[in-house]
């Protein structure tokens, strides 16, 4: 991804996050899927039942 593409996605993404938060969601922005994965896995603890909506 080029610098201007990254700038555009981040600028747009942060605006959406702001709107999500206004609607009581906990909106968060991550530049990469790897960072999002780390965040999700940080919520998981031993013995927790974890389910997935996607096949």
């Amino acid at each position, binding site marked *: *991804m080029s610098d201007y593409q*990254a700038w555009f*996605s*981040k600028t*747009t*993404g942060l*605006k*959406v*996050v*702001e*709107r*999500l*938060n*206004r*609607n*009581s*969601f*906990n*909106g*968060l*922005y*991550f*530049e*990469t*899927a790897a*960072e*999002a*994965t780390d*965040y*999700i*896995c940080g*919520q*998981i*603890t*031993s*013995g*927790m*039942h*974890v*389910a*997935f*909506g*996607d*096949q």
Partner: protein
Amino acid sequence: MTVRQMGIRERAVSLGAILIDHGAPGLNEEERLEMMRRELTSDLFISSTNAVTSEGTLVNVDAYGNRVAAMMFGPRKVIIVAGFNKIVQNEKAAFDRLEQIAGPMNMKRLNRETPCTHDAVCHDCRTVSRGCRAYTILRRKPSYTPMDVLIVGEIMGM
């Protein structure tokens, strides 16, 4: 990149989590349905969304309703993941996206025999195989469901 390809399942297992996965290989139809029911009362439910609007709402379509139901109530926490490509201007654009992009691509991915898998155009079909059945809009977080919505600056899913 899709939610399935993020490697969350593998890491969750290594962290000692118990997976409830209706997409796990080797399940027969009844076992798969039972998994879907159990997913509704999971501790953590992780899913993609079909569209996120610039107004901060989530728009989805589902075949069985299990995914959209679990987004709204049941799991103790929900995490929604959306690639940058899922952002659309408003709810009308979201439904256009469901009809023109997510629907046909999902039906093709799942090898469904629907008209859209032949010409990539929605026919609002009445086929038994139709996957676009339950439509939901989340305009606010459902009251009893803690929900993180992760916007990712990469193209993810369909």
